């Protein structure tokens, strides 16, 4: 069953509970007035009122026919008892019975309009209770008038239920269209997020600059920092305006010389981007020497991950090693491209870097693994650090991922 249909039924049940209980209380108040009904009838009816109340309360949460049947049976029993046992009910007693039969019990009409069988039950119940009421109280008020009030009392909740049920599909339709709009919105936001997250190289350099700034630019001249900040701001602006500068290198000059900043290269050449990384670190006071292969073709996502990991490693060298020079050796074979990042700095004990290791795992290893690569770390206090980064070459990527 439709979930909103369930919700609608719940709504009608809760309404029936409030409706029924309210009028049960009113009927009870009139019923217990002195002289309203005979005392024998009162004593017999009080437990029945309790049953009626409990059943109507349970009707609010349970769709089970048990509570509905119980409430109707208890209500009908009260009418029969008051009408037959002991002295005739007074006008107050009659008012109580009308409140009971035409309002309190009529609340069940709220939950009896949703399906064919239920409507059939409703008709039977309506006729039985109405006939009993008229038969037993015909002498207290003109039957026609009683019948009029009774019919009105049952038609009203039935109409309320029908009205609410008619409103639900309308709402469901509008909610569904909101849902569709929301799905489109989610997809768009997802794409936008992917675009921004995909600009990893850009964020890498922005993050590096921000981190530098956070440490008040330790070891970097203000001029270099200003230039770097300007370049990064330019890249962020491009990203904001809808072009993806990722593939165009990480420095402003590369963007400036490219024929179009939106240019997308499927397999960018590693060499030109490596050069920009080198320039960036050069400005920040770390001399990077490249060795080995100068030109490697990599698909852009793999290149991104590779360069990002490389830049993270170099940033660590710059900040923690205590030396101002690092060596990067790029090698390749038929399947993998590897980079060896070496420094001759202070090094560290690998077992000491729990916290840093978390960061290393997250930012370097995870990104490389994403594209089927890996990273390994070698170091000891006093003898420098070596990081090996490896990524698959594009054409063998799927095999790598499968392993």
């Amino acid at each position, binding site marked *: 069953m439709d979930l909103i249909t369930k919700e609608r039924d719940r709504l009608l049940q809760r309404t029936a509970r409030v409706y029924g209980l309210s009028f049960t209380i009113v009927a009870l*108040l009139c019923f217990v*007035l002195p002289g309203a009904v005979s005392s024998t009838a009162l004593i017999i009816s009080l437990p029945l009122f309790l049953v009626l109340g409990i059943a109507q309360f349970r009707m609010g949460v349970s769709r089970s026919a048990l509570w509905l049947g119980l409430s109707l049976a208890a209500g009908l029993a009260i009418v029969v008892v008051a009408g037959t046992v002991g002295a005739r009910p007074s006008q107050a007693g009659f*008012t109580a019975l009308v409140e009971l039969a035409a309002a309190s019990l009529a609340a069940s009409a709220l939950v009896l309009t949703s399906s064919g069988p239920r409507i059939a039950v409703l008709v039977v119940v309506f006729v039985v209770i109405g006939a009993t009421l008229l038969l037993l109280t015909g002498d207290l008020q003109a039957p026609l008038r009683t019948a009029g009030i009774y019919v009105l009392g049952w038609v009203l909740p039935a109409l309320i239920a029908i009205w609410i049920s008619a409103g639900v599909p309308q709402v469901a339709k509008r909610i569904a269209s909101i849902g569709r709009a929301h799905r489109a919105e*989610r997809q768009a936001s997802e794409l936008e997020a992917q675009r921004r997250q995909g600009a990893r190289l850009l*964020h890498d350099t*922005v993050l590096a600059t921000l*981190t530098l700034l956070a440490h008040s630019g330790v070891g970097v001249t203000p001029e270099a920092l200003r230039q770097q900040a300007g370049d990064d701001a330019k890249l962020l602006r491009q990203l904001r305006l809808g072009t993806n500068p990722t593939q165009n290198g990480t420095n402003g000059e590369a963007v400036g010389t490219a024929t179009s900043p939106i240019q997308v290269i499927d397999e960018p050449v590693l060499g030109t981007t490596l050069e920009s990384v080198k320039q960036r670190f050069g400005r920040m006071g770390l001399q990077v020497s490249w060795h080995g292969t100068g030109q490697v073709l990599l698909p852009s996502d793999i290149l991104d991950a590779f360069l990002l990991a490389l830049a993270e490693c170099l940033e660590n060298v710059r900040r923690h090693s205590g030396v101002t020079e690092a060596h990067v050796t790029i090698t390749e074979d038929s399947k993998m491209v590897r980079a060896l990042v070496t420094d001759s700095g202070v090094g560290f004990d690998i077992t000491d870097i729990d916290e840093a290791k978390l960061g*290393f795992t997250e930012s370097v290893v995870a990104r490389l693994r994403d594209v089927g690569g890996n990273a390994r770390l070698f170091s000891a206090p006093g003898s420098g650090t070596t990081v090996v980064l490896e990524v698959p070459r594009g054409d063998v990527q799927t095999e790598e991922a499968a392993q």
Partner: protein
Amino acid sequence: MTFSAPEENTLGVVVGNARRAVGKTARRLGRATAHRASLGTAFLGLGAAILVALRAVYGASWFIGLWGRGTYTQPLAALSAWIVLGAVIVGAIVTSRVIGDRLPDWMFGLFLTGLLVAVALDLIAVWEFHDIGGYATAALAAGMTLLIVVTVRGSSEILIAAGVLGAGLAAMIFLDTPASDQITADWIAPQITAVAAAVLPAVIGVAIVESFRRMVQVELDRVLVQSTVSAPRYAVGMLASEELARLDLAAEELLESIASKKTALPLAPKMASIAASLATELRLHLIEGRRETWLYHAVSESEMLGKAVTLVDKSSLAGLLDPIQRDGLLAAAWLLVGDTVTSNSSRTVTVQVGPVAPGETPVPEHKILIPITITTTGVARNRVDPSIWDALGRVGHYSDHTQDSSLRVDIECLVDNPADV
């Protein structure tokens, strides 16, 4: 070069909590849905207006009957009561139809004042009969008139107004008692029903509108979360990209101001800490989407699921489920949580996805088996909605048990092996 406190660490993130950002997202969504909760109540308002009009006609016919028999000793008071009430009803119906959203305070005040005047005039007219319950007409119809504004004002305001009216009527009845020998059960009963007739329609109306709003809220929540079913394997979630855009912009502005020398170098400590927190948040957002699955977003974005569901999915395996399986799992969670959200908040659901235990059961080629365990508290096996079994069947082969007198379901969910795709 020194090691500083690792609040900001180039190796990656060690501080912060991704939940912060998600919480913010959920709150914003919550606000949006609260605003949309007025959906469909206009239709209910129309029904209420029709009821009020019918009730007024019924009351007025009584009034005309009494008038015709020459009962009133102060007919002008009774007539003006009905004129005022009629004007209030017509004015309120037209205004609430036109405004459609929320009635301004001063209009509501005017409306209540009009009702008060009508009640007062009617009571003056019938005062000397010492039987308000038997003779009042406009005063009783005034209570039901509150239904006109039930969809355009807060529920508590309506209830308070109805309560004040009921208490006022009761007080007037008490002050207006006849000689003591006439106070019998037959005199009291009409007084009780009169007060009930004035107060109960508004109470029931409020109950209906409240339930209706809740239904709309729940359905909206469900439909909005349903959109995660078609999300990619990993997703950043709604509005997280907006957050990322905001951070990018903040970074851009900061860097720009440094490049253009508006901000002096070296940075003041305050600016430096801004840069640090920007970097941290940016990092968080950059890795965030790579960990979270649709299920995580569904649970964290939904008001109902978020309250009761705990998700354990260390390897983000939920992302591998296909849309049909996701739909089934979401529907099952919904049925488990949704049934008794108000009456029983002790109900909790824990969904554990994985870990994959290879080789235990033979699986078709290019598939892997992800075990999903749903453990609950406070959910009796025989109390769950039967349609949950159908929903679970869409996820995979399942078996249900009772653990600590609450339902536990183990599902074997067969998904495409990501390595083969």
